[in-house]
């Protein structure tokens, strides 16, 4: 299609906007998509719901990226980075959807700032404005704990996205249709690792058991229903049904792995309402620091 020697030349030649970062998508991830809020749907509740879904995947993407140069083998590093990239892609679309549904959620920056809405939401909100569940913000810990979390999260995410394909919000439905295909692979990947580690050596089995114990207190929060969901009967996924599916899949994997549900007390929830542990603040300091130094920056 082109006679460039490399992709860089193509980017530089085409136009300036595409040059700002390799691996980025268009300035507006929803360019060309109709973002009108369906009639009868509360735009503010829709924005809150999109932030919940977006922040889950954005925060976990950041945690998965932390494995780069630290994973047990290079193939796994590539796998975790790829899973993170899928989740980041979903987050961008969902953040842009939140901004379109209710512009009031987008942080204000100095006049003339070129930072697009999805970046403003990712980089310029404080921790208490994030609506992710606590599960995704916990430090990675052992590789086995990362796999335990990825199993629970991707089972949960897939259960939600499968239902959201039927959402009356066409943007959510489209994001979900795409996401289902991606998260299916994430769930399989995590499930196979959990079984492999549980049935490997004594050491790997012990670490898998410990990893599962570590993430299990945060599983209960996935069952909490937020007000925004109650206000969006035909938009949001059926929460109880999705949670039921999640536990069924996790049990299926635990059984194949010869493991049992850990016997640990649930941790406090509240992430959806902005009540987080210190881990999220630390993660955001790392993720947001550079962008916040340059609110007028063009990347």
């Amino acid at each position, binding site marked *: 299609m082109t006679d460039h020697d490399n992709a860089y030349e193509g980017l530089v030649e085409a136009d300036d906007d595409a040059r700002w970062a390799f691996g980025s998508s268009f300035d507006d991830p929803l360019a060309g998509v109709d973002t009108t809020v369906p009639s009868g749907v509360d735009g503010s509740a829709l924005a809150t719901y999109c932030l919940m879904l977006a922040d889950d995947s954005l925060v976990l993407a950041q945690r998965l990226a932390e494995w780069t140069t630290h994973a047990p083998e290079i193939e796994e590093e590539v796998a975790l980075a790829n899973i993170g990239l899928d989740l980041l892609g979903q987050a961008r679309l969902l953040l842009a959807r939140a901004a379109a549904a209710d512009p009031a959620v987008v942080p204000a920056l100095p006049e003339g700032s070129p930072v697009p809405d999805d970046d403003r939401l990712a980089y310029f909100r404080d921790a208490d404005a994030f609506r992710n569940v606590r599960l995704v913000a916990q430090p990675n810990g052992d590789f086995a704990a990362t796999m335990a979390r990825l199993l629970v999260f991707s089972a949960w995410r897939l259960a939600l996205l499968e239902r959201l394909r039927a959402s009356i919000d066409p943007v959510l439905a489209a994001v979900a249709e*795409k996401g289902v295909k991606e998260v299916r692979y994430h769930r399989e990947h995590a499930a196979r690792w959990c079984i492999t580690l549980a049935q490997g050596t004594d050491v790997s089995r012990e670490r898998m058991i410990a990893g599962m114990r570590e993430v299990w207190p945060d599983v209960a929060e996935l069952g909490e229903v937020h007000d925004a969901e109650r206000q969006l009967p035909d938009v949001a996924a059926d929460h109880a049904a999705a949670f039921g599916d999640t536990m069924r899949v996790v049990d299926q994997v635990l059984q194949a792995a010869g493991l049992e549900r850990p016997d640990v007390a649930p941790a406090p929830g509240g992430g959806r309402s902005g009540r987080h542990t210190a881990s999220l603040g630390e993660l955001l300091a790392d993720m947001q620091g550079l962008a916040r130094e340059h609110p007028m920056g063009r990347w």
Partner: protein
Amino acid sequence: MLTLEDLGVLRDVTVDDDTVVVTLTPTYSGCPALTTMRADVLVALRRAGYERAEVRTTLSPAWSSDWISDRGRASLAEHGISPPRPNDGPTDLILMPSRPPECQQCGSADTSEVSHFGTTACRSLHTCRACGETFDHMKEI
């Protein structure tokens, strides 16, 4: 040559007065190649004399590996990438490894999956027990 149309990511081209509008769909939500694809489309149009061009994205219907043309599949194989098989699209959890793709170097079916995720999100990484070569397989989605 493998084209965007062969890959199934080119969804539509229309001419509105003197502006060409090209619609692409990403293979994966976070596909980093989309930026390069857009740049290439704009350069190709400019060279063909269309100064006013616009590239849009569409998310729905979601891209499927089934949209890759026969020519696209042949071209992938030619470049050592095992083409995707038809996508049956189940969302039930599968814990057993799927049927391994054939080695793109020697054609042996005796291959194993090294990683579910290869050099890009759309590919998995495999190795051949017969000839020892490593190859990518384009995943079914």
